[in-house]
């Protein structure tokens, strides 16, 4: 394994015969995987969706953060509400959220989905998507630039990290004792058959 791996806190590295051993907790490991592969749903609502598409295209390339759009809610972790939620659309948005497997996250992108935006006094626009589903990160702007969406993803990663930090008091990875390491070493030697 490369040494870049153990800079992540919560991973302990031990040298044993024939290689290295990493010890961690399942919680940390799962969260680490979760935050590095946030898959949003391909779901565009209005103008903000164009900026969302630009984020997935070559110039901004969210793939490098593991953000890769999926076409079905069953495979998605993240719902980006990119545009105006009107009253006719609201039940469908709620249904999409319910169809996503837990844990699921919601980013409200743009003024419209935050609070109604330029349509604050419209008869048909829902004033804020947080009236129907819980929102994790709000991005201001009309439309927000792809860089702003980038920051939102980073904020979300921090939030997922914080889940781990909150549980760390209880689930601290315990370093193995000398004896246990010795046993592992012996097992490694016998497995190699030398």
């Amino acid at each position: 394994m490369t040494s870049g791996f153990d800079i992540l806190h919560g991973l302990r590295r031990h040298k044993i015969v024939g290689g290295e051993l990493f010890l961690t907790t399942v919680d940390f490991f799962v969260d680490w995987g979760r935050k590095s592969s946030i898959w949003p749903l391909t779901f565009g609502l209005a103008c903000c969706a164009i900026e969302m598409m630009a984020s997935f295209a070559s110039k901004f390339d969210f793939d490098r953060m593991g953000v890769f759009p999926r076409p079905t809610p069953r495979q998605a972790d993240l719902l980006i509400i990119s545009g105006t939620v009107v009253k006719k659309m609201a039940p469908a948005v709620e249904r999409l959220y319910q169809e996503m497997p837990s844990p699921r996250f919601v980013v409200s992108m743009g003024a419209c989905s935050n609070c109604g935006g330029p349509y604050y006094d419209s008869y048909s626009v829902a004033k804020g998507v947080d009236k129907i589903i819980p929102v994790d990160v709000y991005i201001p702007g009309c439309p927000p630039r792809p860089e702003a969406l980038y920051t939102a993803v980073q904020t979300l990663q921090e939030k997922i990290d914080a889940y781990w930090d909150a549980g760390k008091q209880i689930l601290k990875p315990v370093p193995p004792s000398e004896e246990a390491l010795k046993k592992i070493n012996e097992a490694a030697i016998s497995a190699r058959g030398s």
Partner: protein
Amino acid sequence: MTSPTTPNTPPKNHGQATLADGPVFETKIEQVGEHEMILNMGPQHPSTHGVLRVVLKLDGEVITEAVPDVGYLHRGLEKLSENRTYPMNIVLSDRNDYLSAMNNNWAFCLAVEKLLKVEIPSRAEFIRVIVGELNRIASHMVFYGTYGIDLGAFTPFLYSFGRDREEILDLFEEICGARITYNFIRVGGVMLDAPEGWIERVKAFVDRMAPRLVEYDKLLTLNPIFIDRNLGIGRLPAEKALALGLTGPNLRASGPALDLRKDHPYSVYKEFHFDVPVGKGGGDCYDRFMVRRQEITESLKIVRQACEKIPSGPVMGKVGRVYRPPAGEVFAQLEAPRGWLGSYLVSDGTERPYRHHIRAPSFINLQALSDLVKGLKVADTVAVLGSLDFVLGEVDR
């Protein structure tokens, strides 16, 4: 035979008032035959380009009926206009067809200018033409990229949307500060003069684009799979297209070379030489694609000519900060990337319009959908939907 309700009826929570309460509009297809089934497509579907919902009636895999259900993005734009002053309305027009916001600004301003009878400085007219045509190119690039994705080719998207369109957006950002919603074309002229060296950078962009279009053709236009999925699919005869009121590339693909820039030149379009590409294959999906692809070339020609001929001078006519157009009604339209975009205004002499109606080309072009997909396979619906190139913001307003 069974119940006529469509599968996506939202769950009703009885007695409990929610946000979603309000008038319920349901699209219903009555009477399902013995061998027929109903397939719901949208409002969240990757290939409906937004929040369109189409209810399909199928016999096996053949579509026997298709009913588009619009309104999932109805933001009440026309009603809101009545509560906004004229300059505030330009902001709303940006969000109407968000892929060509410049042309939408322009259409609204044309109408107000007609009412006010202001004279536009000629430098402003040239800048309008340049940004309008650049926006048309950007819009067709979105079409080129997303249409490729619809038919299974992802790479063209990265070239057109990710690389070349971003260059246009950088130019726009330089001249007005925004990437999508510009609010740049104002009543009487344009917001600001072009910054130093901008015209040269536009010229450089036009020069860069010519070899890239060859790349585009290699990637998608001449791709045998792409051609197979398009040729002969969704034929629309010229009489039918005219009868439905189609405009823009969708109409020209069927044959008639109707283009407002040529037939009723507004602004300074008289001064430019360009061709109007038309379809030659009877108005199928490939024609609709090719017309847009060729329009990119033509628009580049116009931009180059405009860059060479642009005069110097002021960019704003004599319009006060607050203006009250005289009472009356007016209709102005222009050739937007999706067709004839019209703005109908009724003024009662105050600083707010009494009535504002938008002739949205996408909405009218969408009418062709039901006729086009009848008798096709489900997979071809995606091709037809993509080739009509509508924007839901404009369909629903």
